[in-house]
């Protein structure tokens, strides 16, 4: 675990900025940040909701900086970063899990009684609709349908059974179906 690993990281990833950043080059790290921040922020926002996305995104990049030395180039840097981001999001969410679930189920029920959004723009609708999902269903929907992870992988990341992942995904899709069809 010394700096001797850097050259091999560079050799394997082909991205000199990864190795430079791992060696302490903040300019290189800023370039990495700029390359990846939109994707990470989108992931974070969709999984956690808009309010926390900025802070959590910053947290993710700070941790990325701290952990760069552990990156061995066994996968693409973007894949490694993405997994790190998901772990941070999951960790963040776990600390609030119970209260949040309780609250947002109620909120979703209340939303069912209130005004549906305008349907002018399907994309905005989809973002908005995802944001309205109960957190458990939302993160699985984002991981599976938006990010393309398999139930097996999601189950491992979240520490749940694949059956639970499947049920929550279906629940999310059914809620979104209802929401997007406008009622």
């Amino acid at each position: 675990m010394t700096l001797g690993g850097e050259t091999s990281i560079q050799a394997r990833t082909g991205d000199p900025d990864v190795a430079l950043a791992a060696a302490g080059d903040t300019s290189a790290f800023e370039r990495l940040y700029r390359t990846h921040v939109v994707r990470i922020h989108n992931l974070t926002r969709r999984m956690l909701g808009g309010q926390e996305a900025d802070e959590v995104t910053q947290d993710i990049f700070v941790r990325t900086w701290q952990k760069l030395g552990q990156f061995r180039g066994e996968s693409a840097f973007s894949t490694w970063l993405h997994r790190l981001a998901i772990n941070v999001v999951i960790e963040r969410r776990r600390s609030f899990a119970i209260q949040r679930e309780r609250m947002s189920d109620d909120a979703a029920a209340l939303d069912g009684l209130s005004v549906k959004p305008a349907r002018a723009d399907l994309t905005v609708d989809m973002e908005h609709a995802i944001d309205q999902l109960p957190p458990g269903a939302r993160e699985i929907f984002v991981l599976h349908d938006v990010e393309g992870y398999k139930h097996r992988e999601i189950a491992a990341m979240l520490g749940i059974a694949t059956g639970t992942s499947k049920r929550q995904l279906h629940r999310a899709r059914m809620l979104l179906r209802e929401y997007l069809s406008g009622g």
Partner: protein
Amino acid sequence: MGVDVHEEWTDQLSEYLDDELDAAGREAVEQHLRGCADCRAVLNDLKRVVAQAQTIPPSPLQADLWDGVAAGIQGTGRKGAGVDAAHPSTPVPFRRRFTFTVPQLAAAAVVLMAVSAGIAWQIADRSAQRAQSTVAAGGTRTDNGADVTTAPVVALERDTPAGASIVQVAYADAQYDAAVADLEKALKQGRGRLDASTIAIVEHNLQIIDQAIAQAREALSADPANSYLSGHLVEARRRKLDLLRRATALTSDTN
């Protein structure tokens, strides 16, 4: 209602769509689908949802977050060579504001997740709103003549991108309390028009929000300079107004 009747089938449609069923399960679903237009319609809807999710375009950031990241990575001891990068042991000062373990904060964060996103708010200056008494959208008036628009809830735009343009206004306690009192009064008067489950939802949420407000205040009194906490407090109070406003709106809608 068809959905309820066919629930045992619709419940399998995501797995069917994702090709997660075994051969026998798939065959059974297909057989049902051949004879059931309702379930075929649900399947088509689910396909649409998945297709939309897969093609959802990235949306740009509202703000450049780099400065915060840069502040966070200072002091990690990783600047320059010679540091064992695999074991960054120094905690980052920047992260202190994220390392809340206080239960109060959990409650406060709950509030952030509640109700709906994409709402742009503005709390009017009390004198101004007294003068004009305006609600831009979702303006409500209860049937018993209580004018809910006296609450300083001015603009509600549902189609604002999530997280965008939330105007956080440091409004005075008195102003806020008056708004809440107005809405609470209107809600109380219109309560008879709501069904029991709606009342339960509203009250349950109000209770959680009130608790979050109290806890955020308590945490703030211990750490007054904490902007994260004060943001939570503002947000919790905003949620309360929003919830009250929406609940009050329901008392007139549901008639």
